[in-house]
């Protein structure tokens, strides 16, 4: 309905514009026409002057002849002979006529025949005598006849008249006669045209007051102007009378239809030198430049306006469709966010409930140390879950705002895999899932990429697989390396396959959309934000990687992620052991093969055994192998039994390592009793093997990070700029546990003032909160960096803030800070940062 009104409104506007154009053009045309009509009328009046001058001139010539004749008492023959001599143009003729009954006869200047007949008779010219008498009676300055047929030469002519007194013959008495100076109409017409090319097609007629033509232009029809007017305009008697009165009156203009039915302009003016002559000029309105409304132009304008209207409507409808689609999308997004917030509310309240409830319980049982410890452990778990939830929300926020950026660092893909295994172990163990993590030998361990995001991708997919796989199910992970598109990259393929509940095709179409969770009662029982896959997909896209998914409901899901990752500069040669020979036993042939390759890559040759018994047999020779590596779970004889037997054969000289994909805490005591010297986790990474073998062989070049107890950080002094009392209390107490001394500044301004007054070496570094009253951390850092004391201005400053986005980190570094720790704080990271600062290393 609204569209119809809009359409009608537009059409009304178009029609209004057209009407205005027509109205304006019409007005302009009328104005111009009036101007042109006036000009044409003026020109006609000018013609009257020309005509009068001509007529008067001709009349004067005729009068001068008459005067001479009258003054000299001439006979007709003498008079005509005089005039014959006086005529200078062969076109002009003169007649002297006497009344002859009801006609006129006389002499002509022209002669005919061999006898030189110069007589002339006007007997056959109807009513000419009466007309002539009428002319002579008139008092006008000019006395001229209508156009008539000269009886001597049959040429249409006009004649100027004067009365003369002559004798018919030499002996006769003087009689009054008429002298005619006769001029061909064609001669008159040549002199009687508009003096301007603007009116070259205008035509002129001379009429008398009765409308009879004295001279007639070609376009003037009939023998009488009023008949002509009647013939082609069909006026009523009153209208005809009005036209007659108009022509007999003052000069003026009027429009009539000519003989072709075209509108023409008539201008009329009386000839002053005569009593009853009127000059009537006629020009077609088209000639005058008056045209009707240009319908072609009107058509083009109309079409243009309507096309514009159609175009605008089409564009508007297109916009409406887009707006409708956007509104629907926004509605869906709002609904999704509403659903998400509902979910979030639930998901946040759940761990919060645990934290608050357990804290209350711990408070009630503060005397029971075991119960408090258990409550704190559970609180820690709930807190971690809450943190994960918040991190996911932050990540998707970044994704949605397009602010997710990558921070590439050099990292070990092996460590990454180890981390994956370590992280997944608790869940795998909890759900009793058959977990198989297979890693092909990596030629390129050190890569240059955003380790954090890669970990996030791998963990997301793996944790989903474990979460959505029923207890007793199976999760297989494969991480493999392939040559990259260039020699400076490798292609890392990560495959996670589970035997979980699978996904429907419908859900798979939108599984990468934020806040999407499959509608399934089983899914609803599993904690999740619906953001993991969306974040994962966005990160993979950001790294120009691919993710593929195959899934069948009830059978399981397989995700395959492929990333092209640049190589790091670190060389493989840095991880080489002295050439030794080891025995490696596992029932998995693939593992044996890859492990042997991995060992060879660090300079170790390995013999393989596919069972515990074979390993026992091969290890029986004393000194045959420098180290024995046994898988724990082998079908006939497990690793512990095999270790016990080998130890019995070879004594304590040969170190024995036990391989396990699971946590060995449950079997550690039994294994050590059996003679196992150490444990190593599957998969067998190059660095893992290198570190463990180095440790067993007493090689000082170990890579194992020592557990950092922070003892070397004691007596350090840190200024903490923190406005929140609780946060200050937490950080101060945590740092105090490591013997680190702290001093508080409640805002940035106080921190700056404190540093300005501090003696050199009073603090080793500053932990700076960002959002603080009076002066925020950024401003405070800039102010400290601007201090005159070089020590104060160069003191390391680490941001410690809940502003955890990368742009916040960038802003901190730009302000002159040396590092960034996000709240809630991870004490390990805090200690690491402090240590880094202390050692003076740069990031």
């Amino acid at each position, binding site marked *: 309905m609204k*569209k119809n009104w809009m*359409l009608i409104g537009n059409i009304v506007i178009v029609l209004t514009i057209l009407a205005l154009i027509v109205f304006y053009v019409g007005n302009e045309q009328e104005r111009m026409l009036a101007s042109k009509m006036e000009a044409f009328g003026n020109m006609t009046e000018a013609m009257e002057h020309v005509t009068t001058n001509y007529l008067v001139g001709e009349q004067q010539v005729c009068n001068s002849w008459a005067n001479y004749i009258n003054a000299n008492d001439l006979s007709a023959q003498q008079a005509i002979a005089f005039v014959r001599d006086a005529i200078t143009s062969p076109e002009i003729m003169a007649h002297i006529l006497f009344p002859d009954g009801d006609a006129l006869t006389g002499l002509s200047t022209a002669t005919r025949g061999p006898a030189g007949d110069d007589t002339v008779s006007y*007997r*056959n*010219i*109807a009513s*000419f005598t009466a007309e002539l008498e009428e002319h002579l009676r008139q008092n006008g300055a000019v006395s001229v006849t209508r156009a*008539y*047929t000269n*009886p*001597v*030469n*049959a*040429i*249409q002519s006009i004649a100027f008249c004067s009365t003369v007194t002559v004798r018919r013959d030499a002996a006769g008495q003087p009689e009054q006669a008429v002298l005619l100076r006769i001029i*061909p109409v*064609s001669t008159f017409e040549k002199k009687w045209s508009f003096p301007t090319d603007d009116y070259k097609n205008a035509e002129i007629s001379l009429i008398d007051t009765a409308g009879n033509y004295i001279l007639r232009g*070609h376009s003037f*029809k*009939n*023998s*009488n102007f009023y*008949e002509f007017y*009647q*013939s082609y305009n*069909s006026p009523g*008697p009153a209208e005809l009378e009005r036209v007659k009165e108009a022509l007999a009156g003052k000069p003026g203009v009027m429009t009539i239809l000519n*003989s*072709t039915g075209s509108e023409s302009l008539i201008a009329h003016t009386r000839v002053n030198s005569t009593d009853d002559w009127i000059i009537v000029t006629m020009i077609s309105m088209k000639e005058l430049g008056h*045209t*009707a409304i*240009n*319908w*072609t*132009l*009107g*058509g*083009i304008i*109309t*079409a243009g306006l*309507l*096309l514009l*209207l*159609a175009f605008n*409507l*089409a564009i508007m409808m297109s916009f409406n469709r887009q707006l409708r689609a956007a509104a629907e999308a926004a509605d869906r997004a709002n609904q999704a966010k509403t659903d998400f917030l509902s979910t979030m509310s639930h998901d946040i309240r759940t761990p919060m409930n645990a934290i608050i409830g357990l804290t209350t319980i711990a408070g009630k049982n503060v005397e029971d140390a075991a119960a408090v410890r258990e409550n704190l452990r559970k609180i820690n778990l709930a807190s971690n879950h809450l943190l994960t939830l918040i991190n996911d929300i932050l990540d998707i926020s970044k994704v949605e705002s397009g602010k997710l950026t990558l921070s590439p660092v050099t990292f070990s893909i092996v460590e990454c895999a180890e981390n994956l295994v370590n992280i997944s172990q608790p869940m795998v163990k909890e759900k009793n899932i058959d977990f198989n993590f297979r890693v092909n030998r990596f030629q390129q361990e050190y890569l240059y990429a955003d380790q954090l995001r890669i970990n996030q991708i791998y963990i997301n997919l793996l944790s989903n697989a474990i979460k959505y796989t029923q207890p007793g199910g199976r999760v297989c992970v494969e991480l493999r390396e392939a040559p990259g598109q260039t020699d400076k990259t490798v292609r890392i393929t990560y495959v996670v396959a589970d035997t979980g509940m699978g996904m429907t095709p419908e859900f798979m179409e939108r599984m990468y959309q934020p806040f999407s969770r499959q509608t399934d009662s089983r899914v609803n029982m599993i904690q999740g934000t619906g953001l993991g896959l969306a974040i994962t997909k966005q990160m993979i896209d950001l790294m120009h990687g691919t993710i593929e998914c195959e899934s069948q409901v009830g059978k399981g899901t397989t995700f395959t992620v492929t990333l092209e990752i640049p190589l790091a500069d670190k060389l493989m040669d840095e991880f080489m052991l002295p050439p030794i020979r080891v025995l490696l036993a596992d029932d998995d042939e693939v593992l044996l093969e890859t492990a042997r390759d991995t060992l060879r890559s660090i300079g170790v040759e390995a013999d393989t055994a596919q069972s515990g018994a074979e390993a026992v047999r091969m290890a029986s020779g004393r000194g045959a192998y420098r180290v024995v590596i046994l898988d724990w779970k082998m079908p006939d004889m497990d690793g512990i039994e095999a270790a016990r037997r080998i130890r019995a054969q070879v004594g304590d000289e040969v170190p024995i390592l036990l391989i396990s994909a699971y946590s060995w805490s449950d079997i550690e005591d039994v294994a050590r009793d059996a003679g196992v010297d150490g444990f190593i986790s599957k998969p067998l990474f190059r660095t893992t093997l290198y570190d463990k073998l180095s440790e067993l062989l007493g090689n000082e070049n170990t890579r194992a990070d020592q557990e950092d107890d922070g003892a070397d950080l004691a007596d350090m002094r840190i200024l903490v700029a923190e406005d929140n009392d609780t946060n200050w209390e937490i950080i101060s107490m945590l740092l105090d546990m490591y013997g680190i001394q702290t001093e508080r500044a409640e805002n940035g301004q106080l921190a700056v003032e404190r540093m300005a007054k501090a003696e050199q070496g009073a603090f080793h570094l500053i932990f700076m909160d960002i959002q603080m009253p009076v002066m925020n951390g950024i401003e405070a850092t800039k102010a400290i960096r601007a201090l005159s004391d070089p020590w104060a201005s160069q003191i390391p400053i680490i941001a410690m803030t809940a502003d955890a986005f990368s742009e916040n980190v960038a802003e901190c570094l730009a302000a002159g800070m040396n590092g960034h720790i996000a709240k809630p704080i991870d004490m390990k990271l805090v200690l690491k940062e402090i240590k880094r600062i202390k050692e003076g290393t740069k990031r």
Partner: protein
Amino acid sequence: MRRHPRFAALCALVLALMLVLTACGAQEAAGPQASDVGFTPRLDSQTEGAVTVVGHYNNFEALEAEFVRFAEYYPNVTLTYTYLDGYSKILSTALGNSEAPDIFFTYPWMGDWADGADIFAASENLADPALDIDLSCVRENLLKRDDQGRILSVPVYTTTYGMLVNEDLFAKENIAVPQTYSELLSACEAFRAAGYANPIMGYNKSGELLYPLYYPYFCAQIQGDEAALSALNALQPEAGEYLRDMLELTADFMRHGYLDLESCSALKDNYDAVILRFFEGDVPMMLATGNTVSGTEKREAKSEAFTQNPFRYSFHPVPSTEQGAYFVNTVSIGFAVNKNSANLALANEFMRFLVCTDELNLMAKAKRMVTPCADMSLDSVYAPFEKLDESRMINLSELGLIDEASSQVCRAGWQVSNGLMTVDEAVAAFGSIA
């Protein structure tokens, strides 16, 4: 489109408006279209020139309409009609002067003029195949060929004689339009009885009173009588006997006194005066010729009486026998081309354009004359003539009566009708009646 009916409708509206408006513009731009008469110009359409037609008509609107139509093919040719004072006396002079006309009027009796030979000597042979003028559209018996088989003039109008009948008066008085001589008398009597002072009138100068009654009757009597024609053309006094029946008829009609000579003599001419008198509306029958009828339509508006009280009228043959009336048809005017014309090619081209059924009939209709074409599309006012049997048609061209003999017949009739001569006196005076 099915999904967007409004859009389709809008497109259709745009298209329709464009077509309508641009068509208006196109029509305006194109100007008048050439008619579908089938005329194919033989000259370059951009040919420039001027053609002058001269004649004795004071004005000739029908011809000027043809000029306009011809200009559709030749826009740069100017055609002019000029009235010549004393046409019959001056034509030969005009043909010899420096502004000689290109086309001129001719009459059937022109050959009898003293300078007739000179005039026709200056005429183009319009039957010349090279001119490609289609003369077949003209009734053959109207085409006059000379002894060399040339056709020097093409008829443009023909005329006849009869009476204008006020049909409304006949209807009002419940009187039938007369078909026989006795019915004519009865009708006059009935109107006289009804109080009409002039049941019948006619122009009473130049020997034309009762001419439409007796002249067709006379022609019918001598038609095919070679002896009579020979004697009459020789103006032999004894040939006056061939006029006796006609004169008796005239005298008989006059004896009834239905024709008031005084009223008839008051009519100043056989054109405007006759027509305007008839339009007064109180004269049931007005004797007239086709030439007079040609002026009726135009003068309807000029007549205040007719404008205020218009009536239906038609032109009927005057019944002179109990068998009915005769339809005498004769050429009124023809066109000849001056073969010495400076614009001969254009003049011939105009004749080629004009001489066809469509154009000649248009001219006849415009002037309310009888067409010379074989296809006689007569004006409705001439409808009564179409009802006459073909056997009662007389073509004066075929009759063979010369102009002077014909004049003697008219004068004799006029003398008798005016009571200036008895029948016997008129018969005896044949050949010398002034």
